[in-house]
């Protein structure tokens, strides 16, 4: 994880170019969709990239944490607040969204920490294969717990945001899209400030750089890793909630493909690089929406996978990453 305040011109430039190209190709309506989807992918991709940056583990369970997050948000809305339809009072709506999101993020954060504590920490010095296999196991456990609690078929997510639209550049865009993008951007800025400006953020960066050296300098490695998992899972939880609002229904295996796409986004941006993950999320969403625009909806996953392979062939370090490909 690099501090992204230095050398911010390049990522911003790449991001701006990507957005302009996207806009020109998609038009306003689809661009808004791509932006919304990209915001969700970016939130998840950040988790992959942070965890990879600090413990060099592809957390296969991350996509499923996202899925659990959407179910938790759904449960809070329906069971605790008894919500089923749109909330028309703006103040109520904002308060509800904030409360549900905060609760989901905290809940998921603890889930992430719990997973790390139980499934990954004991294997920190084991052969590389071991934590990868437990990660897959955790992923299946989460999926099947949710499937047995909420059933294997899609579950409706309460649409508490009214389907109102506003007109911009001749296209009618739902307020929900605006909310999702703004929320994602705010979370990302908060994350950057946290990583760049706080003591814990510094501990995270130094641990990512060189764990042993950080430990010698008095950084509590276990705590730092736990916090990283907390933040990653909390972001995924926020993503899960807005995914539910955006898609309208959620399913127990939702995390699989979304996780794969978000991982592709993280690799595309340069794994370990938080800004890169965000940009990667928007690019992947663009690929997916563009495939839909061209009329190949069912091939969009194939397209994203092709992007993953091409990135690994041409630029394994990603758009903004450092050299990663080992020559050995």
């Amino acid at each position: 994880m690099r501090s992204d305040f230095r050398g911010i011109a390049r990522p911003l430039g790449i991001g701006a170019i990507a957005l302009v190209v996207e806009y020109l190709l998609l038009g306003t309506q689809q661009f808004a969709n791509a932006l919304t989807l990209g915001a969700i992918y970016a939130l998840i991709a950040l988790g992959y990239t942070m965890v990879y940056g600090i413990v060099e583990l592809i957390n296969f369970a991350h996509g499923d944490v996202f899925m659990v997050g959407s179910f938790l948000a759904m449960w809070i809305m329906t069971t605790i607040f008894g919500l089923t339809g749109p909330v028309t009072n703006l103040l109520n709506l904002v308060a509800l969204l904030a409360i549900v999101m905060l609760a989901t993020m905290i809940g998921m954060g603890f889930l992430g920490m719990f997973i790390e504590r139980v499934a990954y920490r004991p294997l920190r010095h084991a052969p590389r294969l071991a934590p990868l296999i437990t990660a897959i196991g955790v992923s299946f456990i989460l999926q099947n717990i949710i499937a047995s609690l909420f059933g294997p078929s899609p579950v409706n997510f309460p649409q508490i945001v009214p389907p109102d639209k506003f007109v911009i550049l001749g296209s009618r865009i739902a307020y929900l899209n605006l909310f999702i993008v703004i929320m994602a951007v705010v979370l990302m800025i908060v994350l950057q400030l946290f990583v760049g400006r706080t003591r814990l953020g510094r501990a995270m960066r130094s641990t990512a750089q060189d764990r042993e050296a950080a430990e010698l300098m008095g950084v509590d490695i276990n705590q730092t890793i736990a916090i990283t998992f907390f933040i990653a899972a909390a972001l995924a939880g926020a993503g899960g909630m807005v995914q539910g609002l955006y898609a309208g229904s959620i399913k127990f295996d939702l995390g699989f493909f979304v996780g794969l796409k978000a991982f592709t986004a993280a690799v595309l941006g340069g794994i370990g690089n938080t800004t890169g993950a965000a940009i990667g999320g928007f690019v992947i969403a663009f690929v997916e929406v563009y495939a839909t625009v061209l009329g190949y909806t069912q091939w969009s996953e194939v397209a994203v996978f092709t992007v993953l392979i091409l990135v690994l062939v041409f630029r394994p370090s990603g758009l903004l990453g450092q050299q990663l490909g080992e020559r050995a």
Partner: protein
Amino acid sequence: MTAAMLTPLPSAANPDLVLEARNVTKSFGGLVAVNKVDLQIPRGSIISLIGPNGAGKTTFFNVIAGILDPTSGAVEFNGQQMVARPVRAWLEPITWVVPPIVIGLVGGLIYQASATIGALVILAAIIGLITMLLAAIIRPAWYRNMLLRLGVFKSARPNEMVRAGIGRTFQNIRLFANMTALENVQVGMHLKMVSNAADALLSTPRARAEEQRSVITARHFLELVGLKGRGGQLAKNLPYGDQRRLEVARALASEPTLVLLDEPTAGMNPNETRQMTELISRLRHDLGLSFLLIEHDMKVVMGISDRITVLDHGERIAEGTPEEVRANPRVIEAYLGKPPE
């Protein structure tokens, strides 16, 4: 242990030098770890690389061993350039991906007009790609030459350095911990064995004979470094000093002409250190091997080195015979004003 086990020295373009590093620079981001370092290793000599911690010794070592690409500069081994900054490396993936895609797209267009011909063209693209892939795997030398003709230069990979005749050990021991000592040495003999997957599947007499011979040869190597009778033990169960010696045995098993030893006596007691020093001298004397050592033990360095190169902060601050280096004021300064004993 006989000299016949190790191949005789090949005749090279410049018979005096086995390895020459020119102007090697390696920087990580903004940090220059190695700055314009020259090094020459005459045939049959023992050269040492010393310097304070963080002086860039191991980075330099890794450049020579083909693990890191240098930022600039080059390494020649037996007169052939093995390592340098990659040139036009981006061209390689393009030559793999673009032609099949173009042919495939053309095939797709033809498919609209004539399904049969279109399908045949697409099939041809796939078969062509597979043939190229297999050719690159089976004939790496041919593939390398083809890339060179396209103007693509890539540094030799570690295994190619071994094939050329460079063996190495690691600073923090990297044995195959859960394989036996004997198997570790057998892995080191990988390039000296010829039986392939087909031989193994059919269990041909050639493969079985080679396997038996390799066991006997591997025992010789173990005996050479003083590990006789330890072949059946798992590498990780050996004492520390034995692990270091096993690493040397594994490096020697590839029958190199140049051996790179990264702190071969680290963590050894004086007796073990003396044995290791004697082994190195004996190998140089009996088999004409050349050595490049990174070493902290000044007694070892001053005792066996023909010449010494001193690095500090990534730069070469001195080069010469042990006596010259010992007297060099810059070296004394680098070692905190304390003259090396």
